[in-house]
């Protein structure tokens, strides 16, 4: 079964980094309403099987476009650039230094259960995460990776996004557990 590989096309979104989240959710739910296996529970086994495949594909498409890092990775894939998240290393020395300082601040605040410090760190990380996403969006022109964008910079930007996402998630759960 060959399914639409371009998740932007499938989800009715322009192929750009900024997505209309409300429209994305609406489109996702409209398609699930039509193609979810529940709609085929009383139909032939073949239809049921196809519905499971298509519905799973829709779930993947939504999860991909809904998450900044996955969305960025998918955009690069569509442009012929593959990212190996596990084996990619960032080579920007300024960023690496910042990253170590942020980590230290995080560890200190966690050790002291310092909620105000954690919250301020959270805001700082998210601001950087946002900025990084804007950097990534700027690398594209008219759905295409712009000619001036060099591959190393593209990979580094996605790597940074991944770092900020992870830190932001850790901070969120730590802050929640402390405010209980």
């Amino acid at each position: 079964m060959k399914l639409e590989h371009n998740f932007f096309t499938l989800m009715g979104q322009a192929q750009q980094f900024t997505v209309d989240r409300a429209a994305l959710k609406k489109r996702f739910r409209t398609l699930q309403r039509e193609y979810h296996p529940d709609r085929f529970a009383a139909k032939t086994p073949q239809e049921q099987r196809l519905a499971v495949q298509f519905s799973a594909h829709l779930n993947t498409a939504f999860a991909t476009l809904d998450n900044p890092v996955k969305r960025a990775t998918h955009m690069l894939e569509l442009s012929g650039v593959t990212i190996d998240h596990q084996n990619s290393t960032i080579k920007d020395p300024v960023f690496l230094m910042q990253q170590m300082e942020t980590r230290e601040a995080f560890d200190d605040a966690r050790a002291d259960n310092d909620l105000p410090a954690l919250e301020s760190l959270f805001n700082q990380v998210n601001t950087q995460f946002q900025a990084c996403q804007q950097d990534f969006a700027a690398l594209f022109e008219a759905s295409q990776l712009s000619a001036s964008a060099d591959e190393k910079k593209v990979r580094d930007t996605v790597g940074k996004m991944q770092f900020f996402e992870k830190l932001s998630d850790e901070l969120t759960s730590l802050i929640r557990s402390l405010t209980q």
Partner: protein
Amino acid sequence: MALLQISEPGQSPVPHQFKRAIGIDLGTTNSLVAAVANKGGADNGIAKVINDTEGRAILPSVVNYAASGAQYVGYEAQAIAADDPFNTLASFKRLMGRGLNDVSDTSQFQIVTPNDALTDTADKNDVIRIATAAGEVTATQASAEILKCLTARAADALGGAIEGAVITVPAYFDDAQRQATKDAATIAGLNVLRLINEPTAAAVAYGLDKADDRYIVVYDLGGGTFDVSILQLSEGVFEVLSTGGNSALGGDDFDLAIVQWALSQANISAEQLSAQEYRRLLIDARAAKESLTDNDSVTVSIQSSSVTWAGELTKVGFDALIDALVTATIAACKASLNDADLTAGEIADVVLVGGSTRVPLVREQVTALFQQAPKTDVDPDQVVALGAAIQANSLIGNSRDSDLLLLDVIPLSLGIETMGGLVEKIIHRNTSIPSTRAQEFTTYKDGQTALAVHVVQGERDLVSDCRSLARFELRGIPPMVAGAARIEVVFNVDADGILDVSAKETITGVSAHVQVKPSYGLEESEIAQMLKASYSHASEDRDARMLAEQRVEAEGLVDAVNMALAQDGHLLNDVERADIDAAIAAVLAIVGQSDTQAISDAVAALGRVTDTFATRRMDQSVRAALQGKNIEDVADGSL
């Protein structure tokens, strides 16, 4: 009903035909069946529980396996239990999809059967088999007896064969437990439309699926178990955020507390009563508990050959007896709130499930914790079965109201064992289902021709802390240097949360062979054997039924394909069209004959040649939705 093509609302191509679909609450202590009545009838589309011929809604989840080979189910089995405890199974849901390894605490199966007549299974990972006078039985088979009994009851009440069922399972059930439940339905000859989570079913019974985004608590106090689940409803998707509870705390403990009180008041010990006298006291205690829901005091009495005693139990006195028990359930609620990162104030609705939630102290404490009165309009004994019936009615296609769509997530992460006994997660918990994920692996030794894959479920990092689901062996990999082979392992989780794993070597294209050995389930052949044995009819009847079913499927598929060809034949080239026409002709040529297997093969062949066609049609309809139409048009159903 064209192939993968949805009719426009209100334009069903086939005249609407009511189908008999049921919802089953397959409970630890009691089971129930419910159905939505045909519209136009007196009950007009309302879900109702189906009673037995004596007007009882509940079927106790008890099965007796007599030496004669006969099986007694429900109240009958309960009545025999005292005389024949060793061949009577109760609470067997606790053993569904479980191996001896899982049940380190033997009290778990002491509840199921008083004997320790568990068959010595060579493999501790094998499914638990209990020796009875009628031979070895598994929890899956006992569950099948309950399902058969309820299905027969529903078929009588609804006036014909049941075409599909929704069965509820606890939200925390893992893959093996869900698979065991589906296997039980297969043995019972029941077509499962979907397994749904018990708390979700309870929320559906209250129509909460149509509500705005919110957090819902389902407090389920059964006879012997307590479960609390916290659900998030977000844009029509129910997600289980956390579950908790106590598998050894239930309403029966309230009865026991009254018994203990009466014995101490009468200053006698339980041993001074005969088994029969003790049972009478227990029944009296239960009646007293129920009476205190509406009255301030009740008389409890003990009549034995040696003692006659009667005393007054006030509501205040009863509350003091059960206070510690109720407090324990509240503590579990708080723990679940914590797990879900929520506070009590963020909960929009509290749904009560289980007869013991009628006890006033339970309601008072639940109200105090969540700062709101819990929902009680729907009978708490029936609410899960009713929700399942509503969903069954929708899935079978009776309900025109297509708003009800439950999107579910997987409760526990799925992964495989990697070097050093670590788990590599392939599908994370809370991923929407159905879900497909592929992961590439390679060989680690030169010339390696086989690869063992161990599939596990759980959140922990070590394989030993997770639950083993299956072991696979991929054989026939052509010898290559280490790291050169590309082995793609594909995880598929269907809408019931059940996993299917396949693997292939992609570089050489050499088809490799996958063997699946379920760690805790029944083998496919075993299920087929049980299914065969379960038919009470002569084999000719069975064959006739299978032939009839196969013919219906064949004709249905040919109709669907013809309709699709009439609409979208242009999507095919001449060769593809000829292939499909030939496959249709092959089905039509054989459908009138009585070779069931040949018809089945022809249907499968037609299914294969139309796969691409169906995909293109689906693609086309998705594209049509994007061209010249905005998202509002699509949402209006003109896709």
